[in-house]
């Protein structure tokens, strides 16, 4: 596995990085971390920057050198004494998303929020499923042009430290999208998304119930 010393600064990791999107400062990117460490910084020196990371894992998939960037960042968190609050409670709803009821009850008026971290950790296996689901139902999804999931950031260490502006992120998430309902995989996203968007937000598990009610 390649390490941060292999980063040559191509900037591809910036493209789907929610932290960089908000800060527009290369220090706040996996590349910025790697380059800082290549030039003598310790994790403690860049603790502020490290703590802004959502650990969504998109950078791992975009890095042409296949550097374990989230591994590097996790090690940095540990060294800098940061606690990964977001790691503890993310349920993996992928199996649920494969249920036939989900496909039946999703429609063009829905905005489906994939949980970014679980998606990116199994990207190769899951992208086809979500792509098929999107095409079959006409719903929109929180995918960017790279087909990475745009995370909400809700419940992250970064947002709890005030390093990540959730409102700004959700505004970006919904910009230009037309929908009447939001479906989330991560229950932690539910209440804040409802509050900011003013739309009904349901968890994936509720879709099956909705389908039964409709029937």
């Amino acid at each position, binding site marked *: 596995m390649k390490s941060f010393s292999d980063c*040559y600064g191509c*900037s591809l990791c910036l493209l789907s990085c929610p932290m960089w999107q908000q800060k*527009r*400062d*290369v220090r706040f990117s996996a590349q910025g971390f790697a380059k*800082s460490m290549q030039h003598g910084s310790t994790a403690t020196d860049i603790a502020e920057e490290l703590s802004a990371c959502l650990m969504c894992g998109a950078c791992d998939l975009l890095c042409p050198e296949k550097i374990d960037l989230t591994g590097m960042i996790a090690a940095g968190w540990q060294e800098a004494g940061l606690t990964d609050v977001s790691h503890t409670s993310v349920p993996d709803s992928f199996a649920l998303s494969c249920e036939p009821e989900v496909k039946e009850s999703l429609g063009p008026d829905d905005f489906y929020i994939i949980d970014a971290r679980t998606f990116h950790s199994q990207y190769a296996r899951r992208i086809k499923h979500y792509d098929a689901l999107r095409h079959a139902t006409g719903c929109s999804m929180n995918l960017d*042009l790279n087909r990475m999931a745009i995370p909400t950031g809700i419940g992250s260490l970064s947002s709890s430290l005030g390093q990540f502006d959730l409102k700004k992120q959700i505004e970006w998430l919904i910009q*230009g999208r037309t929908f009447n309902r939001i479906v989330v995989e991560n229950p932690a996203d539910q209440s804040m998304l409802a509050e900011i968007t003013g739309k009904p937000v349901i968890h994936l598990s509720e879709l099956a119930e909705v389908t039964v009610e409709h029937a």
Partner: protein
Amino acid sequence: MNTEQSLPDTAEPNISSLPIDPVAADALIGIPRQQTNPKRWQGEQWPEFVESLKQQGIEIRQHRAATGNYVTDAGGLAHGMPHGVVIAKDAEQIAALMKAAQKFAVPVTVRGGGLTTEGESVAFGGVLLDMTGMSHLLHIDKHALTVRTQAGIFWHHLAETLRRDDLDYLSAPLNLTSSVGGTLGVGGIDVNSSKHGCSADQAVSLQVVTPTGEIIECSDDENSELFERIILGYGQFGIITEATLRIRHYTPLRMHYFYYSSLSHAVEDLLMIDAAKSCDYSGILTMMDSAITLLVAFDCQDGSSDGGEREAAFMRNMKPKLRGYGELMFGLRLTARFAWRPWKWREALFLLRRKRELFPDLQPDHHMQGGKMLDRTVVFSRAVWKHWGDRSMVIPDLATNTEKFVEAVERGNAVCRKYFPYYTLYCVGIRLRDDHKAHYELSSIPPDAGDWAYGCEFEPMYNGEEYSRDTLQSFKNEIYDVGVELETSYYRFGGMMKGYIRRALGDEVVEKHLKLKQQADPAMILNRDVIF
């Protein structure tokens, strides 16, 4: 580094007394060599300059961890460290920076995506201004089909934001991390440039900070002389802080590939289909001169039959004239050709492997729908990075008029063959605008080009081999020497290749621009050593 100066005349050569060669591990020790990187600026008046910025509330990062981010560019061959880094915030901040830089004669190197290959965005001392700090889209005019954006934005992010409104840029480099400002300064070539022209020609108006710190809006109608110099001006006459660009409605596209084993046939066919304006996208991509692909594509507008009609007309009228083959027929011909040449089986295996790796990446399922490519921005750019990107890249090129293009490509190809077993060529046409001829002076657009200019990039594929910097530089020189003989221009003529500017474009035009530069930038601090 001139080692002669380090050795006393009478001294026996003493290896241990020689300075360490910072350039290449295999450089011949003790042999004087030409310095290709500019000399590092030594930091005169730097403390006073920094103090002046601090008093104005401008943050300048001097820690090695910050400056180290910018140690090289996409080429990975030029290395230099700035004394300090400023992250661009707004035009006023940049104006204040430039005024202080003029006063204290501190060089300022402007960097967007850092996708230069000749060290043009590497600071050899002085300030590095990171424009990605100014990378927000400001306003979309859906009626006029224009977008106003900060110039540090990557084309990828511009596309990402425009797509939310079903819009797209017109043409942009096949690279995700090129910045709008950097591209407008050099050209920007896409596979639809034969239809839409280069990216620089999409600019309607610009906000520019001049080298002396004035903030000026310019366009074809307002401050047009400045506009002329900024567009394709290689960053010599100002810093683009905002740009208004023409845009269009988003369309997926349908691709067609034609395969050739003759370079000249492929190039002639490219010229023919461009001249007939018969398609929306065209270009040539090769694996050496063995597998040559002519790429043709059409915009497919939903609800409109226009794309379909053009495509059908192309298939009816142009395809029969093309000398390329379909994939199966070409594969059979290639197999037959290699079967009788066992000494070329290694090359055949390489081609086979590249095909297996590359083709799926040119049509990934999740970027395709119903045979149409949804996200060309991403598909092409990721393929470029994955299959052609490397830690050190040299991509010399020749930019010619229509008449010289076949010869330029063939001669450049011969140079590639001489230096590398594996390499690739990328050829594309650029539609020129009559009303922008003044923009093209001292640029990659050759002065003798008519309606189209053509560019060919020659890029070695290292395939795990290590090549010395000297080899790579010699290769570039030999390609550029072809250009001198044929009187072409070059896309990458700045930085380490700037020695070719006078030879290629002549003293008269260079002197004219030098005088303009001296007037605009009295301390000659902005993007020093890129051109002048």
